[in-house]
């Protein structure tokens, strides 16, 4: 289906309700759908399960914790080993108010890809013999041990593209690509903010990173300035 273009990020989130499972593209400052995150904060929906590479590391997701909108996070960076500085998420996590599933980054990426690709599970050596293996099937093959990891899907994916066309094709820029194209395939409703929306046909077919079939809603937004200080 052709993507629908919305005038504001708030309108683009129409229908997202309490308890939604939401994926967020982005890696620290790169390719994060910050306009959509801020609109989700304004929307005030609660009990969310959020899936993102990081929360509280140069992203705006931690702001969702201000209003206690997050019930659970699935992430690769969410808790610091040092207590130098504490995010809202960490404080709530340490008080037992939010749940956290910490996932190795490669497994996180692969699980999302599997969720979008109709793969029912995959075997990886990552995590064998660690806390990550707890409760998972271990397979032996070719003299190695492998964990069976399961696909990850969401109700909604919120993405940040550099450029979109009106049909819904997306291009990302440099390290802004990261999890965005994977999440585009793994959610029932896919909403992307783009810095620019061009006419259909302007993007060369070989240079499109996410084909339009994966994108339901678009909104044009100037990027929100975000910078992590590394702490």
């Amino acid at each position, binding site marked *: 289906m052709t993507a629908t273009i919305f005038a504001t990020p708030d309108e683009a989130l129409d229908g997202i309700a309490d308890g939604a499972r939401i994926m967020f593209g982005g890696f620290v400052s790169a390719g994060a759908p910050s306009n959509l995150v801020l609109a989700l904060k304004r929307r005030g929906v609660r009990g969310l399960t959020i899936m993102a590479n990081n929360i509280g590391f140069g992203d705006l997701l931690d702001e969702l914790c201000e209003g206690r909108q997050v019930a659970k996070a699935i992430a*690769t960076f969410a808790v610091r*080993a040092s207590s130098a500085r504490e995010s809202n998420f960490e404080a709530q996590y340490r008080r037992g108010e939010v749940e956290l599933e910490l996932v190795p980054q490669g497994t996180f990426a692969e699980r999302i890809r599997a969720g979008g690709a109709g793969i029912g599970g995959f075997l990886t050596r990552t995590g064998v013999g660690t806390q990550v293996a707890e409760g998972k099937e271990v397979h032996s093959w070719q003299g190695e041990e492998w964990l069976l990891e399961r696909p990850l899907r969401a109700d909604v994916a919120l993405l940040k593209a550099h450029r979109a066309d009106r049909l819904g094709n997306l291009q990302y820029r440099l390290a802004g*690509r990261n*999890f965005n194209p994977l999440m585009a395939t793994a959610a029932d409703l896919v909403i992307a903010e783009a810095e620019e929306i061009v006419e259909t046909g302007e993007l060369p077919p070989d240079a499109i990173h996410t084909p339009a079939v994966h994108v339901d809603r678009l909104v044009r937004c100037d990027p929100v300035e975000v910078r992590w200080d590394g702490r």
Partner: protein
Amino acid sequence: MAAEGKARLTRELVAMRVARELPPGATVNLGIGLPTLVGAFAPPEANILLQAENGILGYGGFSEDAFDPDLINAGGQPVTLNPGASTFDSAASFAMIRGGHIDVAVLGGLQVSERGDLANWSVPERGGGSIGGAMDLAVGARRLIVAMAHTTRDGQPRIVRECAYPLTARRCVDLIVTDLAVVEVGAGGLTLREVAPGWTPEEVAALTDAPLRVAADVGEMAL
């Protein structure tokens, strides 16, 4: 103990020593923290290809230009791109890492065991930590170098018989470079290859929990 007052290598000198381990043309992933310093010490003629797990192959030094939020390494630091750099999604990036396409990974460490087990992501008494790409790199890189301080701030050895902290991966470390020594991990255990200037093998062994075989040709750390 007399050794306690002696100077240890700075983080920069540890990074410099690690850089000497990178073969020309190698594809290298540098973990967060001390390892990110290694890139600056690799000579340009070595043509090292730096991979960042957030989706860049061929990044260069740290960027001094206006901050570009879409051009950062996996530690969130602004970087430049070398000619021939490419960008890709996280699944392709970890396919590269887990598929054995990274020649060398350099990671920080909390503890390394005599078998080469690595613990580097969680300090339970400080409330946890995060995994990031460490488990994937530890398992997937063809050669894993751990760069870390030889002891904790209060003097406890980090090279141990068994890791007490949660593991990153089992039997994954090939070489340990610390502010006191270079230690090789082999099938038969740990071998002390080099010691920091001014340190004796005995002094280093005294600050090491795991048994250390001293190499016949043990020498001073080549910087």
